């Protein structure tokens, strides 16, 4: 989805902070006035950019009043607390999944922060835990997490829907800590095309609190980041920064990402993700992945499906983009699930 509002220069400058090849001379002209400070801080909190913003204010890259600098710094410190609380939650989740024998990978927030943000680790904050579960282990993972007291925020549309078509489920634990349990990177056309088993053939790892955590491989982190930017959350800049960070700082083997994407027939999402990252951050940095992305021919059908997401259409509209991508014999069940959800008692 796309935030339709114009991106304030200060937020864009903050989101570009630390990227190699980005000219910071421009920043001397970027200032936050008292009139727009509240809006910019709110958007920075929403988009988890307070770390980048507070750091840019502290070093004078962006100018603002002392009150604004203090407010941004306080917001960042609150986000840091959120991040370590979520990492503690991730470790507890890891123990549950490991004990249940579930194959899984950590992705997004904590994974990117530790593996891709290097000396900007503290600036890349996050407010939930994202985990990819092997499709065959989906019921086991839900059972293990449910037994530990986590519950779904929304029930499965129909029995079997998640496993065959769904993106996953959001689970909530004590203190409303949120766990996004993913089966796929997206709903709709590009989600059902994915062969998620592929991402379990490789892994990186991080260590959190002396616990080894399996993480999506770098090319797969880029694949997920592109899905998130193009088809995912209501995020203007942070998702774009993640894509740029993976390419420009982590120097991910992006060709491997494209290879997987081609195998899944989701290369349009990767091309759009990379191109959008450059556009939203107004990057003027040469990179072969960007050259590939802007030169990549996206089919009209893929472009139409992507526009359903970027135009912020409803869940149902987005889910319906899957229909042309499904085998004909699965279409009736899919449409029934969307039109007449039949929720099970166990899910409520």
């Amino acid at each position, binding site marked *: 989805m796309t935030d339709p509002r114009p991106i304030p220069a200060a937020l864009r400058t903050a989101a570009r902070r630390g990227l190699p090849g980005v000219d910071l001379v421009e920043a001397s002209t970027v200032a936050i006035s008292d009139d727009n400070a509240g809006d910019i801080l709110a958007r920075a909190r929403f988009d988890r950019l307070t770390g980048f913003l507070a750091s840019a204010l502290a070093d004078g890259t962006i100018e603002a009043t002392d009150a604004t600098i203090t407010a941004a710094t306080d917001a960042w410190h609150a986000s840091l607390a959120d991040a*370590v609380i979520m990492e503690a939650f991730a470790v507890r989740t890891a123990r549950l999944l490991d004990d249940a024998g579930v194959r899984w990978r950590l992705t997004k927030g904590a994974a990117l922060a530790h593996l891709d943000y290097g000396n900007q680790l*503290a600036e890349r904050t996050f407010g939930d835990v994202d985990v990819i579960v092997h499709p065959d282990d989906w019921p086991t993972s839900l059972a293990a997490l449910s037994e530990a007291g986590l519950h779904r925020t929304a029930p499965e549309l129909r029995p079997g829907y998640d496993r065959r078509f769904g993106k996953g489920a959001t689970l909530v634990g004590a203190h409303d800590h949120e766990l996004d349990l993913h089966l796929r990177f997206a709903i709709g056309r590009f989600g059902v095309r994915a062969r998620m088993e592929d991402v379990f053939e490789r892994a990186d790892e991080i260590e959190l609190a002396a616990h080894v955590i399996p993480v999506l491989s770098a090319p797969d982190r880029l694949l997920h980041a592109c899905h998130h930017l193009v088809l995912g959350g209501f995020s203007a800049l942070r998702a774009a920064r993640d894509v740029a960070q993976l390419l420009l700082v982590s120097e991910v083997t992006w060709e491997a990402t494209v290879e997987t994407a081609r195998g899944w027939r989701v290369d349009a999402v990767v091309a759009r993700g990379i191109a959008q990252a450059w556009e939203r951050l107004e990057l003027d940095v040469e990179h072969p992945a960007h050259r590939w992305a802007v030169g990549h021919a996206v089919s009209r059908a893929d472009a139409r499906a992507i526009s359903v997401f970027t135009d912020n259409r409803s869940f149902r509209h987005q889910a319906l983009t899957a229909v042309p991508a499904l085998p004909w014999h699965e279409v009736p069940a899919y449409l029934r699930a969307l039109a007449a959800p039949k929720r099970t008692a166990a899910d409520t």
Partner: protein
Amino acid sequence: MLTDDSIVNRRSDLLWRAAPGHLVVATVDGDVHQAHGAAPEIWNRIARPVPIGELVEALAASYELDAEQIRTDVIGFLGGLVAAGLLEVDA
């Protein structure tokens, strides 16, 4: 009681973030502790076992202060970490 000879290092099974002048530490159970000022630098220096006396001298040199000026504050901060169960101490 902590003395100059006490050897301290932070526990390895913690989650933490350091920003300029701000430190956040959490246990796996989700207990969160925050500290300010020189806390991030002290936290960085106790990533390995270090005698408090050596730590105080190093911090004093870093901040261009006399060790006696900061010893009480440093030991007080470390005592707080011990009380919160975030520190291993070899007295």
